[in-house]
């Protein structure tokens, strides 16, 4: 029991991302309101962004900006800087996530104009009729 607990505490960042992801996933699948679905999707994507960001971070690491002369003279100790690659990747992922959200919002507007509601059940009811 203790070992599991310490495991969780030691890797709390990953556990947080898993929990966030599950919340988002639940909202996407389980909620019937389109806005909530979209929010769930954003939570889901944010969870993954956190996952990537935290994977690049090191205990005691700094921002990955090094002085050129310093680096050329003494070299760079990788343990002292965070891995910048995952962070850079997430810039792109954020852009993607924002674009998808934008498109989804635009589409939701069309749905709202057509059916006057964003509750999936009510929309389906109106379609049936």
């Amino acid at each position, binding site marked *: 029991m203790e070992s599991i607990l310490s495991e969780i505490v030691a890797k709390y960042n990953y556990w947080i991302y898993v929990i966030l992801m599950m919340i988002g*996933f639940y909202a*996407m699948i389980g909620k019937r309101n*389109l806005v909530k*679905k979209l929010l769930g*999707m954003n939570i*889901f*994507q944010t969870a*993954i962004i956190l*996952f*990537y960001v935290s*994977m690049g971070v090191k205990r005691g690491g700094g921002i990955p900006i090094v002085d050129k002369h310093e680096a050329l003279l003494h070299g760079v100790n990788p343990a002292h800087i965070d891995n910048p*690659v*995952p962070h850079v*990747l997430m810039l*792109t*992922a954020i852009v*993607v996530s924002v*674009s*998808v959200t934008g*498109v*989804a919002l*635009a*589409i*939701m507007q*069309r*749905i709202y104009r*057509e059916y006057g509601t964003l509750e999936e059940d009510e*929309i389906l009811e109106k*379609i049936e009729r």
Partner: protein
Amino acid sequence: MISQNLHMFVLAAPLLSGILVNLLGRLSRRWISVLTLGSLGFSTVGAFFVLLRVLAKGSFHYTVGNWTPPYGIELLVDPLSALMLLLVSGVAFLASLSALKSVDQELPGKQHVFFTMYLILVAGLLGLVLTADAFNLYVLLEITSINTYGLIAMGKGRAPLASFNYIIMGSIGACFYLLGVGYLYILTGTLNMADIASRLPAQGGTAAVATAFAFILVGLCVKMAFFPLHGWLPNAYSLAPSGAGVMIAPLMTKVTVYLMARVFFVMYAPWQSTGHQGVHPLVVWAASAAIIAASALALSQKNLRRMLTYIIVAEVGYMVGGIWLANAQAITGALLHIVNDSLMTLCLFLAASAIVYRRGSLDFNHLGGLYRSMPLTMAAFTVGAFSMIGVPPTAGFFSKWYLILGGIEGGHWEFVVALLVSSLVNAVLFFRIIEFGYFPTGEQAHGHGHGELAVQEAPLQMVQPLILVAVALIAVGLGSGWIVNDIIRLVVPGNF
């Protein structure tokens, strides 16, 4: 210089003209068709030369912006990706001929928006085909998806809702893929697919690698609508504007299957040879179940385009099963089927688009007497249907041949049975349509008055690509020996 960078031009042409279409298309409608056809025509011709070059000089890697791999983004131009390049640009070109007409009818005033998305989507697909970088693949996947969402949402009625559901499912798929890539990055510290592959075997058969692949493959399965993750597809594809359907339906799922094949060959196969064979039979069983279930669902449809969407889902099962059978015959079949299925789907969707242009609906009860009123369209449709059923010498027969042979050699009889059952179901499905088209409906048959139903063919611009694809289906069928020997065999790894 030009010949070395040709594939980049192929990729850039639709991307740049997509932006131009948005600007110039507002001024004059003429620009839209000029730019669309011009850029896609250029890409098709260019892709053809890329393929010739690869076949003559062998495959090569290309580093974008001269950032050397594994740091920079790498593109891989091998016979298969060159073939896919040609396929994507060719299909998009032919589809755009028909789309230009049907968009005029269905979305007057919005043509420039439509074709902006259309062209960027094509550019995204072309990029997907070439990329050798796992993260770049994610970005391109989302570029194509976002444009697809937009295109589908332009349809009538329920289309926006279908598109929204697609967004949710598509995002889940993409996120899963991204997660898997994240795991691989943690394990190997690189994003270049070949680089990942070279470092993975050292990891051994750990659960972490398995989880990474599980996420990646499930993500791709959602994107390619592998049954039972297909829920979003039928609505999205059948409600999209005709002009979008003719391009999205043949290409999106097939390119995703191609990606799965890439992931499978480049990263998964070298790693799994260290263990973990147990997954393969499971996937083949799942694919067999998918084929049968999707075929059964197709039987209960009452609308031509919806029926076709379920057939697409079944065909995805063909290809996934073929890849995971993991023997030379089945993989050959799966890769050949990517080409063939794109063409068959294109043919059928083009025909559907032409019919809807004239009849306004694709419900079965609107299809009466079609052979008389639209003989050319229906002739091409018939060829496409025969190819789906798998009648030689159409292309569909030959890929099915390799797939079934792979199933027999791998001892997976469930897959063999599934393929045969689905062929039979396809025969039922398409002969039902053919029957509707061949026999006049009630009022037309009145008084046995044949011939009164005037010939009312779709516009030439929609019929031409259709006839061309129908001829291509037979040509590809007869030429499948060449395609297999000179292209596909080259890329099937030797250890299969």
